[in-house]
């Protein structure tokens, strides 16, 4: 698959020969090398790999949180690797939702305010109703006034899901969303995630080291030592 020419417009997310290395002492430590892949709009892709294989780095690059050392990253056909911080922030605001392993809720905001935040940032009408609706959809309709510290891990992750889907992003990136949860809670969160994905028809990229979670994805991209080792279900 490496270097295979791809038709840009059909991809929601596309990487062309992307490498990322970090300085380590005087040498450069290669994290990702020469990654090329395209994820179609609405596709559910899982990125798999053992610890240190570069999964999270790849996700960070896709979200414009990090910059590649070389190569091109395109979102809806637009290259993003050269964009200013401001433009990247606006891109994330409009197009990308996130779910993290450690939830990353704003600790000083209540559950509802966390969900409201991206909506308010976009200046959307009816933000309150949408936040209430989403909290109800994730089963936390009555917990909106609670602060993150007052919620369990599973509840926090459900708030994070509501926040991620609130602005109706075209791409949703999830980094080990069940990594900090026990298996039953993890299962519930994953069910919720896939349900919300189906309803929204967003492109979903899930990073995990758990093969069982990946089974639910339409496509599974295996990373090993910073390279794509296997790409299953890339129809």
């Amino acid at each position, binding site marked *: 698959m490496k270097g295979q020419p791809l038709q840009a417009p059909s991809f929601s997310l596309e990487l062309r020969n992307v490498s990322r290395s*970090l300085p380590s002492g005087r040498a450069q430590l290669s994290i990702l090398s020469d990654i090329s892949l395209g994820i179609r709009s609405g596709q559910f892709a899982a990125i798999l790999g053992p610890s240190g294989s570069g999964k*999270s*780095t790849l*996700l*960070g690059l896709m*979200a414009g*949180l*990090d910059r590649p050392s070389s190569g091109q990253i395109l979102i809806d056909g637009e290259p993003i690797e050269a964009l200013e*911080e*401001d433009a990247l*922030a*606006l*891109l*994330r*605001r*409009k197009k*990308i939702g*996130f779910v*993290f392993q450690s939830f*990353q*809720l*704003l*600790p*000083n*905001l209540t559950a509802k*305010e966390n969900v409201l*935040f*991206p909506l*308010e*940032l976009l*200046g959307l009408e009816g933000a309150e109703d949408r936040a209430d609706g989403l909290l109800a959809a994730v089963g936390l309709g009555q917990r909106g006034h609670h602060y993150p510290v007052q919620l369990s891990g599973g509840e926090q992750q459900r708030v994070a899901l509501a*926040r991620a889907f609130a602005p109706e992003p075209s791409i949703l990136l999830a*980094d080990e969303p069940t990594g900090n949860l026990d298996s039953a809670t993890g299962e519930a969160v994953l069910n919720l995630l896939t349900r919300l994905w189906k309803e929204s028809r967003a492109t979903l990229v899930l990073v995990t080291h758990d093969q069982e979670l990946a089974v639910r994805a339409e496509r599974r991209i295996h990373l090993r030592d910073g390279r794509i080792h296997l790409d299953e279900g890339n129809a």
Partner: protein
Amino acid sequence: MSLAFLLRAALRESRGSRGKLMFFAACLAVGVAAVVAVSGLTLGVERGIRAQARQLLAADIVVSAYRDLPASLESVITKVPGSRSTRVREMVTVASVRGEGDAPGKSQLVELKAVEEGYPFHGELKLDPSRPLMTLLDPQSAVAGPDVLTRLGVSVGGRIFIGSAEYTITGIVKAEPDRIAGAFSLGPRIFVSQEGLDRAGIVQFGSRVLRKLLIKLPGMPSAQEAERAVQVVRSLTGDSTAYKIESSSDAQPALRQGLSRVDRFLSLVALLSLIVGGAGVAQTVRAWLATRLDSLAILKCLGMRPREVLALYLVQIVLLGLFASLIGALAGSGILLLVPHVLRDVLPDGWISPFAAAAWGKGLALGTVVSLFFSLPPLLEALRVPPARVLRRDVEPLPGGRAVTLLAGLAVLSSLYFVSLVQARSVSHAFFFTLGILAAAGILAAMSALLVRTIGKAPRGKLPLWLRHGLTGVARPGSGTMASLVALGLGILVVVAMALVERHLTVELRSSLPKDAPTAFLIDIQPDQWSGVKRLLEEEGAGRVDSVPMIMARLSAIDGKPVEEIAREKASGGDSENRLWALTREQRLTYADALPPDNKVVEGKLWSLPGRPELSVEEKFAKKTLGIRAGAVLEFDIQGVPVTFTVSSLRSVDWRTFGINFFWVAEPGTLDAAPQSRLAAARIEEEKEPIVQDRLARQFPNVTMIRTREVLSRIAGILEKLGVAVQFLGFFSVAAGLILLGGAVSAGSVRKAREMAVLKVLGMTRPGVSGVLASEYALTGLVAGVIGTAGGTLLAWAVVTQGFEMAWKPSYAVLTLAPLVTIVLTSIAGLAASLRAIRVRPLEALRTE
């Protein structure tokens, strides 16, 4: 992003941080309280001093001339709304009493003052009986000084003659507000009404009558308002140099010199205390933001642009800065409320207004500006947090560090200059102050870096465990030691410098009144009377009897150019009225073979031009007022006779000795034949003064004795009051500096909790952990104390010797005490701030981030 959302988001975001930010508020509030208290006190003292200066003039503005004042001048009261005016005429004449039988009665040279309703506008005229002056005066009555009564042997109800008219004494003048405004008085005072003076028939063509118009401005005019009014008055006199215009901002030169020193010092105190507050703010914001890095990353991740994140935090800081400044201003007002009670004996009633709008405005503005700009460096640095931090903790910060640091540095620099400018009201003072602070911070940072590196490399194998860990805590890279060392060092520098400068200034103010200063000046002694007068003084035990000849003259030309012409040119060049007056007024000259010991030739050589009449001129008068140097040729008019002198030397005069000194000293032989009198000074015991006066009145009726104890005690009183005010301000700012020192330590100690938790997990006991912390804070205190004390001493030395031109006296007590006190204070403050961290269970500390 709407403003409403920004405010909402800022309020939400600040929720969890409010506890931490209370410390920011406390730091800033203390600084602002200092600024408001100092500013309120300065304003009050300034206003009070201005009020005293007004008393010396008995008005806000006085126009005077030995000729009729222009009629147009009366219109000043319509040109300056709310102002009032009153006329005064003064002349020297003789008062006498009817003699026994045909024998002539006693007579006395007196200073006659004719007044009308309104006099005095400012200051208190103390009369016996205690009634308003104008109720005691009608055209047939007079109010006289006690000296007149003593010398003429009359009492209240008695009658005296002035000119051709007879007057009944209706009261005694005990104190006059504007009595010391002139140089010397020629005789005791008699007050009459304007009609009373006309009745005497002594105001004739050629009479030497000083005509004055006293003008009172509405309320308590600022220096600018007074200056504007002076401009109006000047234009009404047709810009003529013939009229002398004085305003309350011109007080006596000696007093002015003292005041400007104090003023400079007060500005400096306020400025320095503000910077310590800024350092505290920067420290607290840094500590606060360190706990907000995750949130910053999440905000960016959710699509907030860097500038929006900046705005979000700036809004929080400005709101908090404003809130803290308000609390500080309130606290400052609280202090100002206490000031009159604490300083009841030294600060006159009504000097201090605790809620002065100007002080509040300054406090709020400076507090907010300082909080905003001093927060920028840590804020801009924190903004470099990469959004990828949400994925991994160890990602490197965003690029652009150098530019951001530069920008933040420039912001702090410009704010520093701005607040300095506001406080010092002088571009050059603000510039040098900013430069000084930068140099101090730079030197402190360099020394701290050197010390931290030395500590890091020093072998510590055999030291006790607690000390070893304490040393490691100071030397560890990224421990934040540098920042707190600089902040602490700067605080100590301020405290030490202030304590030293204040000490020098107070000592100087106290000792500027020599114990052996003359207590009486005798004027108008005829040359042939001097031996008799001298014998009389010696018989009454007078000490330090000194006498010089005095010749009255007018300066007519400088280097061939008529003085009137020079004055006109200078007036159009915007020179001050005082300087012009100095050219055209009557000059007093003396001649002497050698100079008194408090004189020193600084340019040229005394009596070094054979064959040419020489003159030695006081240096500042020559250079600043006249604009001449050695070699200038001056022409004088001595009672109608032109005399030409060459200036062969300039000399400095130490006016603080209160000895007899002249601007002009002529070569002996040049003026011996000129009409002259003698001026004498002597130190006479207080109880002997009336006896000397009586004997002089009987034997030498034309000699007038001026008792300088009253003048001296008034000046001493003012200086003493100022000294105490300065001391109080010094103590206040020292205290403010100390609180901020503690604050800086506490702000830095928050991050210690986790480190200590690790030590506890590894088995260290609470006392052990306390020992580690105490040794670390003590070491920080030692380094900051030594560096700050050294810097503060250097700064104080520069200010004292260069700024105030005083001699430097090292204070070993301060040099040893300051570092010791710093060690104790940093240890206490550090441990107190770490109490929770010491007590908290390790697991709790490790869980919370």
